[in-house]
């Protein structure tokens, strides 16, 4: 038997084992209760708050983006509508203008036609009157020349014939 119990490198000392076991258990309990749990809870809470605020920010951003998109869409729509309206107005005005011009033209033509026909009529009338007048004058002249010889009815007939021949 070796009387000297030298401690080797690989010997397990049960006294030390006992102390370390107890200490570790005690400190594990104490640290868990008073240090780790509060710290981990606080960290968890903070992370949760950060996560939530991030989520909220993301949501707000999404919403803002959605709104801005909608706005843009509305703006585009309004623009297209206004463009359409302008186009329509231009078309309408164009149509109106051409219409009016045509109408004016037609009116003018109508007036011209009217004037022409009036002139024609007047001319006819004037010619007729002229003819009657000329015939009257001719008769008068002739009657003055012939004097009482020929009665008026017969003379008129002769003159008319003469005029018709003239025509």
């Amino acid at each position, binding site marked *: 038997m070796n009387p000297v119990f030298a401690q080797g490198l690989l010997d397990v000392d049960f006294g030390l084992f006992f102390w370390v076991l107890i200490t570790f258990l005690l400190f594990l309990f104490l640290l868990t209760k008073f240090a780790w749990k509060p710290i*981990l809870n606080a960290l968890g809470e903070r992370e949760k708050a950060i996560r939530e605020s991030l989520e909220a920010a993301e949501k707000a951003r999404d919403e803002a983006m959605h709104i801005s998109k909608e706005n843009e869409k509305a703006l585009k729509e309004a623009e297209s509508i206004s463009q359409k309206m302008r186009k329509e107005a231009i078309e309408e005005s164009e149509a109106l203008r051409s219409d009016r011009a045509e109408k004016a033209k037609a009116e003018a033509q109508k007036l011209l036609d009217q004037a022409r026909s009036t002139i024609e009529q007047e001319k006819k009338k004037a010619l007729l009157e002229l003819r009657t007048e000329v015939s009257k004058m001719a008769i008068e002249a002739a009657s003055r020349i012939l004097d009482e010889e020929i009665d008026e009815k017969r003379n008129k007939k002769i003159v008319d014939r003469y005029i018709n021949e003239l025509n």
Partner: protein
Amino acid sequence: MKQLLRFLLLSLILVTGVAVVSSAESGKENRIDLIGKVVDHYYLDFKPLATVELPRLIYDNGRLHAYRSTSSLLNKSELFTDAAYIDSEPVIREGKIKPATYRIVRTDGTSPQFDFSITSHLIFFWLAALLTFLIFIPLSSKYRKGIGRSSEPRGAFQNIFETLVVFIRDDIALQNIGPQKYQTFTPYLLTVFFFILFMNFFGLMPWGVSSTADITITAVLALFTFAITQIFATKDHWKHVFWFPGVPVPIKLILMPVELIGLFTKPFALCIRLFANMASGKILIMAILGTIFIFSDLFGPGVAYGTSWIWVFLTLFVYLIKALVSFIQAYVFTILSALFIGLAVTEHNEEHAH
């Protein structure tokens, strides 16, 4: 030019070293007990300032023997009488430094029933625990007050430790255990990580001892991981151990012992890995520094003095690596614990094949 300068400097160092020490004689035996520096002691070593003996607590035959120090126990000689059994370290006898530490034995040479004396590793374990406590209790009160709860963390102190805590929670616990159950085990992983980290760091300090270089302490930590994996293991986990699903029966029979052994090799590997890494770093530093004394024996003290700067630089290098390893090993222990816990507590799908 530069090389020449370097050569001159080197030779100057060597020559002065030889000149100064050539007269010094190494008449007495200079033996450094390498393993003795790494193993546990019943005293705190503040050489050359002081050696603080630690209380001895021994339970034997229904009686508790409590002494203020090993010396006082030796003086009482209740448990032993024979001087041959006694090692009075750290009391120096006849001018000789005796090997590091010895257990107290009964007078007949047998060991007492239960020796639960306070040891240096235990003191540094307690210091690590206390440090963790003193850092995280004020930190938690900060969170309780709302700093870091509703606002951002304030100050370097809170930021540094919050980063570590978040790292362990997210990159170790959450990654390896999964989102359903990681919260149960995060406190354990945090405790283990900071204990190991601080214990490792104590080993880097002057007069400090890294308690993780003690297999007993790593064994306790590994035992906790083992206990947690067994307590929280799911039915699925046990099914995978004893009757592996999805494979033919002969393979099931082969896999059963493999898985059973695996249950125990996992914590065993945890224990050995941490212990070996921390102890080897310490031994390496001692060995490199010891080269100076070996050189002194082989080539004379002059050469030893002259070349000592090489070993000091190497020691510095190893020391820096140790600082890195302190972090890495704390991380590795924690992540492996998380991994083993994760393996035990996850619910597998019956359908999926392995």
